[in-house]
């Protein structure tokens, strides 16, 4: 068991973890944060996307044991902080989620695109989201929601 102390959604957490524990199981099983989803556990589907030290990553391709000192933000944290309240409202308004299993990862990925600033085209939004699999929507409502949020942010003073 490896001792780790890290920050998860702003709270300091100390645990002992098995090296075989990936970050998603650590969050879900050890911390009860079930908003991050294990969709494929081999790094392809994007359902487990979350933020580590300020950048999005695949939670299923990270050893929890390697995160001593890290700063982890999950969908629960980014929701509570209000950072993407506008994006989430746009998802609701545009019906950009159906079953919702991909949605936390999709929101985390879109949040990074928003944080990078600039004014990406719809094609560039699609490209940025291209590592996040959604089986339900046609992706269009998701692109709409991200585009709406970009527009309203750039219009804001």
């Amino acid at each position, binding site marked *: 068991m490896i001792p780790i102390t890290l920050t998860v959604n702003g709270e300091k957490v100390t645990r002992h973890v098995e090296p075989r524990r990936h970050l998603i199981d650590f969050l879900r099983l050890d911390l009860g944060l079930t908003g991050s989803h294990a969709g494929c556990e081999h790094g392809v589907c994007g359902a487990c996307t979350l933020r580590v030290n300020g950048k999005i990553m695949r939670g299923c391709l990270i050893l929890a044991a390697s995160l001593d000192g890290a700063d982890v933000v999950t969908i*629960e944290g980014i929701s509570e902080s209000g950072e993407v309240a506008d994006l989430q409202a746009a998802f609701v308004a545009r*019906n950009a989620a159906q079953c919702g299993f*991909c949605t936390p990862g999709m929101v985390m990925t879109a949040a990074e695109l928003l944080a990078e600033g600039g004014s990406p085209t719809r094609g560039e939004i699609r490209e940025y*989201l291209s590592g996040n*699999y959604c089986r339900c929507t*046609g992706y269009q409502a998701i692109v709409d929601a991200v585009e709406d949020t970009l527009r309203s942010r750039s219009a804001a003073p």
Partner: protein
Amino acid sequence: MNEITPASIGLSREDLPNSYIGRSVPRPNVPKLVQGRATYTDDVTLPRMLHAAFLRSPHAHARISTIDTARAKAVPGVVRVFTGHDLAKICDPWVATLDHLKGMKSAPQYPLPLNRATWQGEPIVAVIAETRAAAEDGVAALDVEFEALPAQTDMETALAPGAVVIHPELGDNLVFTRTAESGDVAAAFAAAHKIVEARFVTGRHTGVTLEARSIIADYNPADETLTVYHSTQAPHMMQGVFAKQLRMKEGDVRVICKDVGGSFGIKVHVYPDEVAVAAVARIMGRPVKFVADRFESFVSDIHARDHRIKGRLAVDAEGRVLAFDIDDLTGIGPYSVYPRTSAIEGNQVVNLCGGPYDFMNYRCTTTVVLQNKTPTCQYRAVGHPIATAVTEGLMDLAAEALDMDPVELRRRNLIRDDAYPYTSPPGMRFEGLSHHASLNKLLEMVPLDRIRADQAEARQRGVYRGIGFASFIELTNPSPFMYGIGGARISAQDGCTVRMDPDGSIVASSGVTEQGQGTEAILAQIVAHGVGVPVNRVKIITGDTQTTPYGGGTWACRGAGIGGEAALQSAIALKQQILEVAGAMLQAAPETLDITMGEITDKASGKPRMTLFELGRIVYFRGDTLPKDLQRELVQTRHFITKEYPFAFTNGIQASWVEVDAATGMVKLLEHWCVEDCGRVVNPMLVDEQVRGGIVQGIGGALYEYCIYDAEGNLLTTTLADYLVPMSAEMPEINVGHVETPTRESLLGAKGAGEAGTAGAPAAIMNAINDALRPLNARVHEQPFTPERILRALGTIA
């Protein structure tokens, strides 16, 4: 055209703020989804819960020689190990046949096989451990000896002499065959001006729900009840299945279905590993969780669409369709899947080919055979994309042979909009469709002149673009004629209970389920509309056999059409009951009153008379002040089943605009259009993205998704890196339009909308690719249309 207004369906005035039917109301479920606050089955943890993992057959066909569990049992964390024989003591096998599919046969299937593995990936041994990781370690430590047997993988040789008969007791590998024939096909072909023919292949693919199949079974030996948390589309059906197979009473089994991470037909079947988990829980008396990992999903979720179809079409000199002659062959794996059976897909091909067109002579045969591959069964738009690809592929070939515009050929043959009721050659009865209105609407949306000019200009530059069309019909709102008459305990009816609580809140519980399509949202809209309250005052309960009226669940596009109508009828009944009570309290005739935004109003003037809060206070806490004989049950239940037509058919048409890179065989999707007629549209925003999602799933089958096997029956595409699902970067902008022809079977008039996109997209894309390739004299009819296949068609590679 049918106007969609509340007044037109006999409800309150359409200008009322609670007139929700037809409005794009946001789904109340979405905030929890975007904040990671949903509860999927894997999010549930129960005290003393154990975890299951399965050893799966490494062979397509093998005798199980010995199973030595000693090393596995010694693995830290492993609690018990179960073989097929262990579970068979308390769990009965099932046979998936339907009586109305004449001559259909299949073999008994156990949760874990007793002696023989019949597909690579079949669960053989269950390891139960304290964690999933320990269970997997236990699986790795199992010593199971298999004696590999010859495998029957090719469906084309499944009935030939020398084929491996997968279940010797059945005599051969034939599961089912049916021929529908009407008119005089031979004479029609003899008299034809042009005959076109082609061999079509639809690639075996699968559902890839992002949330894998998930189940927790918990047996309490003290009260002898089984509680199952299950990611399923049909909780009541599964309640019956668990009760029957485990020899229990239905009342002792409760199925709870929390949030479901996608289903698409994948989660409406009985899977041996899931029944095994229930059996293990029954034996151990503790909760057991099983969540399929992605490897397991690819080899054990049902596959679909593994068909080879030979089709011929005869037309006269004016381009009128004279006859279709179609031969369909499909391999379904080693077992027909319970309880819907794996013969329905082929049967649908027989029912649906030629569906949009008015013609007389028809012959179509389906042959359904066994093979040693993952079982196939019903997946979104069952059979439709196959029938549509064959029909519309042949129509485009005919247009080319006649040198006629493909739109014009369709216009000449589509069933007239005033021709209904209409019975198709294979016997499908259509209540009312709108093929011509839909085509006209599509042509308003598609800038065809600009596209044709662009296409011509691009060809000059060696850039090959094409547009393809596909008309389709879609079967929705199935009656008992789909499964019930065949003996399956699959409910075609559904119920809804609506009640008013003391503060005027409305709670509705429904037998249909929510898997993301927005079932709960539209039920809330319908109930709010029906009762007369703001939509945010309505709470919807689904997915619990103990608290919802018995129903079939959500599949075959029945949520809105069946569940929605039950909700509407029960809401109207509750409103009536509320007005009776209000009338007594206000000394007014109930028919002079209405309910608007949660207030009792005077119908004529709109003047508020009393709040529902006040009415609730009197009824629940001061019932003594009401007339003694006044009925005051503020709860109403109604069940609904269609009665006139076996199915509520819908229709539509799609267009796809593509660019084919003739050098690489890559297809770029430029834009896509769909007009569909699902009857009454309850929430346009939800329907639009449902249609888009369906189209993208159709695009998946057409261009990307493919379960590739080697000759020995080993699945090669077992990761998301090898099995290609459609992703956002490659998907086109999709434009959706509607024509509305409500069904008269119900007050609501809704038909299904979830499968239209998938039904038509592959055919539209195929025709677009072939339109693009026409100057190069190349054609493709074999899905998926991969770069390899396109390069072969071009003669670039041999």
